[in-house]
């Protein structure tokens, strides 16, 4: 019984995750999306007595620079001592993929090339001579189609075989002679200081010390014993650098030369083993691209797509929600009976069921369906190649806000669930833009808030019109609210990218991968399994304690008034300033675990009930609200505040996980609160001003 350590590397969009899933099946740990894979996804398969542990590295175009993904990939390859690194290579764009292969080959000898999509390449008229490729690189090459089961078995046996064999790759990137001369003394120094480090890694570190001194030094410090990192070492590097400088190689031109050498080698090898049949066409725009991106059809198709998502969020997700909440209500009754028969005192039963269980159940019922729909849907669309096209189409608009087209996608996800939207921000590669997108996602009203928005707008906005128009008017009003949310979101993004994240000059590049048929079943299972359950667990972990808190506030009295009432009175002045009242503000604060319980808590405060009120008819709600002094203006302010206030606890927790920063999480709470307060105060003042003028006239 032994364990082998295998790394899986490759460019983005080369079917790496398909290979990973095919190799490991469901036998894997949660992997992260593109972007911040702080910890690579991990899975395993077994052949006979050996377990092969596969680590899926983030998809990168290179491993030489210092972006977080590349750092993770590079550190794993350099220091995790892999038995084998499998590089997945897309046959349709061999040159660019080989660039990465050559870079990785600079670090380690133990490589296996896995040539994917050669069937697709063949259809495009590109023929790749696998043997020649293997010979030129001096590396084993397996030609597979990742969707084909037989090929995966072949790949497995190839991995098993190569893990134990020795490697002698023939290829090595040739740098200009002057540079080769410069590398040599540094290489020799490192090799002498740390004889156990593989020669290739020593050479790689020597190169990095010259082209990226900062992380070259970091790499060196991990390899060299402390006593060797001395003045002698620094002086050696300095003298080599000044020597290069004299010969006309500045720091920048060294980097250029390294990038150039690696890419030219890739071009050369690819050229030698690629031939083209008469099918080969370049500059060929397929019909789907023509339709999706043309001036006439592009925007309408985007709109249809967005409407589809909106429909799924507003209506589609509600069916499973209703079913779930019915199930949870039944389960609740059973649990109550169990508690009673177990002899629990009444207050404990009430705390457990009315407090903790009901809040948790409500959060789950509302959050699970959109999550279960959105995660797989977005993964599918991404695999299919549609998402990058949408980002491409919408980029211009978002560019003005200092962001990029991908933010449109995260906003769409936000309509379903802000926590989903926030984790979706991983698709944005620039850290500054990603942070701005994360912080502004909450301005997009999520599914949990739509419930209250529709009820209030049908009562207070639609209710002002005759029956024929009321539903239309209230629908239009909701659209206005969403648009208002989007505008504020863009405005805040603009302000942030301009003033907060100033060093935001990252070049926008977006690869549009070919349309590919995704493996639907696998994607469904995977996203349900990892992402959905993962996020849900997070939601429940915050909902339960908050549920208990609400119950305690409503049930503990102090001098005859419940804590809840004390709260309401305390918040009343602030509430009135915002055009709301104390009960409403209390409700927003207490509904931190989930926005869907805002209205139930408001009602709970008004009728002094001991638990959130749910399932009242619209008529009953209208009566209660009007008796408590609600006007159209109160409703408008509540709706505005609902769109523009702090995100729910699950979203905040997701912000914390995604950004890893406490500061960002605090900002995610206060920035929206600040915006919402300002807008509500101004509408409130405006309203009173207009009223005053009308009275005076």
């Amino acid at each position, binding site marked *: 019984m032994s364990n082998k350590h295998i790394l899986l590397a490759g460019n983005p969009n080369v079917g790496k995750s398909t290979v990973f899933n095919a190799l490991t099946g469901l036998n894997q740990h949660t992997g992260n999306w593109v972007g911040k894979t702080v910890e690579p996804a991990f899975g395993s398969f077994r052949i006979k007595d050996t377990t092969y542990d596969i680590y899926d590295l983030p998809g990168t175009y290179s491993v030489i620079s210092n972006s977080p993904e590349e750092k993770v990939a590079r550190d794993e390859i350099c220091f995790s001592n892999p038995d084998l690194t499998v590089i997945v290579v897309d046959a349709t764009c061999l040159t660019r993929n080989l660039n990465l292969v050559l870079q990785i080959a600079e670090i380690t000898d133990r490589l296996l090339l896995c040539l994917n999509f050669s069937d697709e390449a063949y259809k495009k008229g590109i023929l790749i001579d696998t043997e020649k490729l293997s010979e030129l690189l001096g590396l084993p090459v397996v030609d597979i189609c990742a969707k084909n089961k037989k090929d995966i078995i072949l790949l497995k046996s190839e991995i098993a075989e190569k893990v134990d064999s020795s490697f002698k790759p023939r290829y090595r990137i040739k740098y200009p002679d002057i540079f080769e001369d410069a590398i040599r003394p540094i290489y020799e120094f490192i090799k002498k200081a740390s004889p156990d480090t593989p020669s290739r890694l020593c050479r790689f570190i020597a190169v990095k010390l010259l082209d990226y001194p900062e992380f070259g030094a970091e790499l060196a410090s991990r390899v060299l014993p402390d006593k060797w990192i001395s003045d002698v070492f620094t002086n050696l590097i300095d003298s080599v650098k000044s020597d290069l400088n004299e010969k006309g190689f500045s720091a920048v031109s060294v980097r250029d030369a390294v990038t150039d050498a690696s890419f030219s080698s890739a071009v050369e090898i*690819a050229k030698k083993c690629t031939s083209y049949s008469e099918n080969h*066409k370049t500059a060929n725009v397929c019909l789907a691209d023509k339709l999706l991106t043309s001036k006439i059809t592009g925007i309408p198709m985007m709109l249809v797509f967005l409407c589809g998502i909106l429909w799924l969020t507003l209506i589609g997700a509600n069916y499973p929600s209703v079913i779930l909440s019915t199930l949870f209500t039944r389960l609740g009754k059973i649990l109550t009976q169990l508690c009673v028969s177990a002899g629990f005192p009444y207050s404990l039963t009430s705390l457990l069921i009315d407090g903790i269980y009901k809040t948790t159940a409500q959060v789950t019922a509302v959050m699970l369906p959109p999550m279960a729909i959105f995660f797989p849907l977005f993964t599918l669309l991404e695999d299919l190649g549609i998402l990058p096209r949408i980002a491409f189409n919408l980029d211009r608009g978002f560019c003005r806000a200092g962001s990029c087209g991908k933010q449109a996608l995260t906003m769409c996800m936000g309509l379903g669930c802000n926590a989903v939207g926030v984790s979706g921000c991983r698709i944005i590669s620039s850290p500054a833009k990603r942070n701005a997108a994360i912080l502004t996602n909450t301005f997009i009203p999520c599914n949990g808030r739509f419930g209250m928005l529709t009820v209030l707008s049908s009562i207070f906005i639609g209710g002002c019109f005759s029956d024929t128009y009321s539903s239309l008017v209230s629908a239009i009003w909701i659209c206005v609210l969403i648009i208002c949310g989007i505008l504020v979101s863009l405005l805040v993004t603009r302000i942030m990218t301009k003033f907060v994240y100033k060093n935001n000059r990252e070049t926008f590049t977006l690869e549009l991968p070919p349309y590919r048929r995704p493996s639907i079943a696998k994607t469904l299972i995977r996203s349900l399994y990892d992402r959905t359950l993962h996020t849900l667990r997070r939601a429940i972990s915050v909902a339960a304690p908050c549920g208990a808190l609400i119950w305690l506030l409503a049930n503990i009295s102090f001098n005859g008034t419940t804590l809840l009432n004390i709260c309401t009175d305390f918040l009343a002045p602030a509430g009135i300033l915002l055009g709301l009242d104390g009960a409403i503000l209390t409700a927003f604060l207490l509904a931190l675990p989930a926005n869907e319980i805002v209205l139930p808590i408001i009602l709970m405060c008004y009728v002094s009930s001991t638990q959130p009120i749910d399932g009242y008819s619209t008529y009953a709600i209208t009566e209660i609200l009007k008796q408590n002094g609600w006007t159209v203006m109160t409703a408008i302010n509540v709706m505005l505040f609902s769109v523009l206030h702090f995100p729910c606890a699950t979203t905040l927790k997701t912000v914390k996980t995604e950004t890893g920063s406490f500061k960002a999480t605090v900002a995610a709470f206060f920035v929206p609160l600040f915006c919402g307060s300002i807008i509500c105060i101004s509408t409130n003042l405006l309203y009173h001003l207009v009223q005053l003028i009308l009275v005076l006239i």
Partner: protein
Amino acid sequence: MDMNISNTCPLSELPLRSGAFILYVGGDENAKRRLAELGFIKNTYLTPLFSSPLGDPRTYEIVGTVVALRKETADNIYVIPTKTNSPTEGDKI
């Protein structure tokens, strides 16, 4: 390969569906590196394919892939337009 060396132009001005070789990639270092990883280095052949409905960004076919760049980026890349159509992938001058 016959080509007209005299007229270089920024990549952003290269008409759709016409081929060119990259002469020079400008911009800051990070930009240059990112572009190089995607194949935007000297002597590489590329073709602008289509632009987004709002005109910017545009896509370019380069080393067998399709990559979208904004105008501000493409302004910094200089190319030599060529009359020969579609040389094979990664061909050099």
